[in-house]
């Protein structure tokens, strides 16, 4: 399962990705994480307006195998959540970088992105 990781994203060691677009950022989990978790059956999303702390937990993702915390790769305030996941949690498996996004936040500190990995580094960290 040699996933390739989109070059325009930044990655955390907890297997979340961030797509920064100006002061806003979209967050999801990586294809590697989705594969490891297996079929996702439930995503517990934060309320819009929730303030996320970088590397703090912000939700829960449940698969047929396990229940895991979601970790925020960046700090910020939740401006939008992916409502589609309530009925179709499988979007996270099917399209982790697209329709399977989880939350959008307004970035508190763009410099935090520098603490995350680029695609190549993340790819190396998951090669086992």
């Amino acid at each position, binding site marked *: 399962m040699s996933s390739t990781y989109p070059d325009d994203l930044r990655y955390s060691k907890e297997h979340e990705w961030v797509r920064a677009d100006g002061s806003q950022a979209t967050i999801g989990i990586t294809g590697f994480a989705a594969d490891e978790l*297996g079929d996702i059956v*439930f995503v517990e999303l934060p309320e819009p307006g929730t303030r996320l702390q970088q590397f703090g937990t912000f939700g829960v993702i*449940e698969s047929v195998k396990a229940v895991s915390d979601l970790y925020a790769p960046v700090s910020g305030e939740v401006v939008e959540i992916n409502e589609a996941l309530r009925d179709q949690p499988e979007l996270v498996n099917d399209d982790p970088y697209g329709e399977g996004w989880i939350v959008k936040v307004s970035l508190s500190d763009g410099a935090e992105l520098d603490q995350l990995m680029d695609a190549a580094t993340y790819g190396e960290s998951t090669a086992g």
Partner: protein
Amino acid sequence: MSVAERAGTVADASGRGAAFASPSAGEAATVVEPLIFEASAPGRRAVRFPQPSERARRVATGQPDLPAGSLRATAPRLPEVSELDLLRHFNRLSQLNHAIDLGFYPLGSCTMKYNPKVNEWAAALPGFAASHPVDPAASSQGSLELEWLLGELLREISGFAAVSLQPAAGAHGELTGMLMTRAYHRANGQGETRTRVLVPDSAHGTNPATASMVGYETVTIRSNERGGIDLDALRATLDERTAALMITNPSTLGIFEDQIDAVLSAVHEVGAIAYMDGANLNAILGRFRPGEAGFDVMHFNLHKTFSTPHGGGGPGAGPVGVGERLVPFLPGPQPILAEGDPDTVRRNAWAGRSTPGARFALEEPGSRPESIGRVRMHTGNFGMFVRAYTYIRSNGGAGLRAVSDDAVLAANYLRVRLADAYDLPYDRICKHEVVFSGRRQKRANGVTTLDIAKAILDHGIHPPTIYFPLIVEEALMIEPTETESLETLDRFVEAMHEIADRAGSDPGSLRRAPVTTPVGRLDEAGAARRPDLRHAFGETGAE
């Protein structure tokens, strides 16, 4: 006849009804057994009740008491079947299931080890079975005596100063233990300052959940490369903010914490409480007494170690044992020996005699002002106490030690016999369970641990626990328990070798497994994402 053929016969005989789909195989839905609703016909009855009294009739029709909003407009559509059809339906369903009374079940004591039938004999004795929890002490002396004696046996087995039988399950025992921990720190004026509970990553998931429920912050301690607690990490984290360390010992890796003395000293040095999750006690009976070692509190799972049934989520029993410093905080009321000499009563009881003049009672409310109070109505799940008491007494001290020794021997036998076929992330002598990893099969053949588990079903064996503990990739956690013969263990080894071979030669067949069971690979994700739990009664079924 194979299971599949038998299932086919059942389906043909029933001729209609509910279906389990087998979506991964893409086959037509297979009828296994109709729902009881589909076997229903208006007016059929298994039981005919006598005419109710006028008062009962009024209650049943809600005339005197129930507000109008609480009354149904239409009667519930309960199934209507004869007693014989009812019996056949549930007997057929039970034959579609796998149970420890039918075959090997290496989920072990974690789910349910073998429950000797003598336990059921004892629990069915009318004096126990027909007793009522609000009977006065004078007419419940036998039940109170059994509870007191069970507490004494658990004290002896664990080395703790005192035991409460009240908690209804393991996690409830944990909660009780942590409530006592909080009460202890509060009594010492440290309730505000001790805010953290340390939990190793090899602990049961209920441990951090319990700590959170009591209001503590959980701090995870990583395991070292040998699967034990990283002592340096522990020492670096322990301080005056620590309320307790909660450890599962043996851990979920099936490994006994061999630095336990150092762990306990470090915890006590900072004034924290040492909690042991006793869920894995089946490995250490007669070999290790946690209370004597220095733990302050532990829960027992009577429904695991002491072989009481807990199918379908209940009832369990999770008594807690405590060291001297937590005794004042124990839940109450406790069953006590109100009159009589404890040594004499115990000696007589172990010799099968009662003691003339001995009197048992429940503590007077308020007699221990520091008690955390009741955690369960009455004295707990009494039927479980009778079974656990019977198990302990019928085995005796030497027998219980043999239980653990055999459980450990069986797990280590499998560890050695299967080590060539499956990866062993922590390759060392284990206790009652051994944790393999299916990562070799996943990497080389694209066969997951789930596929391996499903293929085990085709050997007539229930799969072991999979994907737990979380710290092992593609985990396969095998707990054979003490009751399996060498021949059964060898059959399991053969099955696991056959599956490992087939992972190389024909991995596709494993991905399609199981093929001999009444239903094939179920759509687990679909069942969780879109559960369909209601029966559609057809056009008139709207409620």
